[in-house]
């Protein structure tokens, strides 16, 4: 086989592989169809419903894979694909937005309009790179970290109420579930830093641990404010409680504390000490290459979307919003409002990234343990004040 010299020969090789795969699979599949009955039945459905897709849909319904089945919710709509798509486009938007703020152009050539397909181009590039686990590192732990971090991020989506109907798992302790999952991430970061067994990732991992442990407490107390106000731990009920007033108006301090802690949890620029390039050469991510690194980035950005979603459900009134679409589409209207608010929260975090330098670890911890903690207690006091006096009737909570 000739060596790949130019880009065109690479694309040619790619197409040959894909076409080859398709042909072999269809051959194999049609062979299979003659022996396995259910597959044969599926093949008839395929041939007969070639005309109208509705036949296919209700076949899937029978099989439990239909539009409102759990499989569809987990895999497609409010679940992983939807979050991965948003995460990919947020990466594109962040690079384009920061570029515009910095007088430059940002991604341009991938995808005809303004580099829209840049994230997909990155994924393709990463997929073809070689995964290198350093020889001195503990190989299996090292390679399991990206999977762990991405799965934690995806698990967070389970309890996120995108709209009234569209929620994967409605449980009455969903706030606890979220904080249980968020608690896993520092352990995975430490494992990652420790497994790559080299000086800089280890310092990065220790810093990550310090940072994340220090900021769960103010975050918990600010959510305590919300839970006290609504009396439930179920995110959907919290959203119902905000039908006539959003909690951000009731407790701005709690929202500010939660937003800051969220950015610290996600290690965004003002607080991205674990991967501070100029000091410790991108901390615990240093040793990861190709799809391991790609997976980690995907996990980071899905967690970013999930935490922004939690912030909107708790403080910005989830899916409530004026009716834009004609009244036949309430559910779609709710989904649109939820997504707009989440994207706004993410854009604010991106603006903060463009505007601030990095904070030093002791300033971060001092700020966390002293100012944020006190602010969250003040917020708690205000919430109790609202509850006990007749203010709660006024706000209709």
């Amino acid at each position, binding site marked *: 086989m000739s060596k790949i010299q130019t880009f065109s020969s690479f694309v040619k090789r790619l197409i040959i592989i894909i076409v080859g795969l398709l042909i072999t699979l269809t051959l194999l599949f049609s062979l299979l169809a003659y022996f396995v009955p259910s597959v044969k039945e599926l093949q008839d459905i395929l041939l007969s419903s070639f005309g109208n897709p509705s036949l296919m849909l209700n076949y899937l319904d029978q099989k439990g894979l239909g539009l409102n089945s759990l499989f569809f919710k987990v895999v497609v709509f409010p679940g992983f694909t939807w979050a991965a798509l948003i995460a990919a486009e947020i990466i594109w938007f962040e690079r384009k937005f920061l570029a515009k703020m910095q*007088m430059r*152009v940002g991604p341009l050539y991938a995808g005809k309009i303004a580099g829209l397909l840049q994230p997909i181009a990155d994924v393709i590039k990463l997929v073809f790179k070689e995964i290198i686990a350093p020889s001195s590192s503990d190989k299996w732990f090292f390679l399991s970290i990206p999977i762990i971090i991405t799965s934690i991020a995806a698990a967070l989506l389970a309890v996120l109420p995108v709209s009234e109907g569209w929620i994967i798992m409605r449980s009455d302790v969903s706030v606890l579930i979220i904080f249980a999952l968020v608690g896993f991430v520092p352990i995975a970061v430490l494992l990652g830093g420790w497994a790559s067994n080299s000086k800089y990732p280890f310092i990065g991992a220790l810093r990550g641990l310090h940072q994340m442990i220090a900021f769960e407490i103010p975050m918990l107390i600010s959510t305590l404010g919300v839970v006290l106000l609504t009396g439930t731990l179920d995110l959907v009920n919290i959203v119902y409680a905000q039908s006539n007033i959003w909690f951000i108006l009731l407790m701005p301090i709690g929202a500010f504390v939660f937003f800051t802690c969220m950015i610290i949890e996600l290690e965004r620029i003002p607080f991205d000490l674990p991967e501070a390039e100029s000091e410790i050469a991108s901390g615990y991510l240093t040793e990861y290459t190709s799809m391991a690194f790609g997976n980690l980035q995907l996990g980071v950005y899905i967690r970013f979307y999930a935490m922004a979603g939690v912030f909107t459900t708790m403080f910005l009134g989830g899916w409530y919003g004026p009716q834009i679409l004609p009244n036949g589409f309430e559910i779609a209207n709710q989904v649109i409002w939820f997504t707009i608010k989440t994207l706004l929260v993410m854009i604010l975090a991106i603006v903060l990234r463009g505007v601030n330098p990095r904070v030093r670890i002791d300033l971060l911890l001092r700020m966390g343990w002293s100012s944020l903690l006190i602010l969250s207690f003040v917020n708690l006091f205000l919430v109790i004040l609202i509850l006990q006096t007749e203010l709660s009737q006024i706000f209709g909570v």
Partner: protein
Amino acid sequence: MVFIIKLLSSIISGMNQVFKRRMTFRYPDQRLFIEGDGYKYDPKTGIGINGYRGRHILYLEKCTGCSLCVMMCQGISQAIEMKNLPNKQITVNKKSMFPQIDYSKCVYCGFCVDACPFEALFETNEYELVSYDRESLLFTPEQLAIPPKKRPEPTVNLKYGDSDVYHG
């Protein structure tokens, strides 16, 4: 409280920049316009004439082959050597020796132009000298004699808006 005010002021100044025009221009489609036609030197008054110092241009009929430019460049980057062009018969240049410039070494300081007493060697504002191998960067006297072709059309230069700068 001062912390919040200062943070807001830096956010506002960051957001202002989002609505201004970009500084970068897309090089292969747009090219930077440089006016004038390069740096020249007038040996009589000993003063150079302002211009961009890019690729050299050699007027073969004026060059006497005195290799003063070679001696000057010897101490800087040894980029110029003399080359014999047998088919070129110039009255002033009996041995028909002409300078050839190796642009993988040249630092574009323009002292060879200052050293030439016969106004045979000037510089043009041609700056696009890229090649895949070093040999093609060695410009023979004939190549140096060809004046650079006009720059393809979409040329941009620095323009000043009221509070932003862009290449338009």
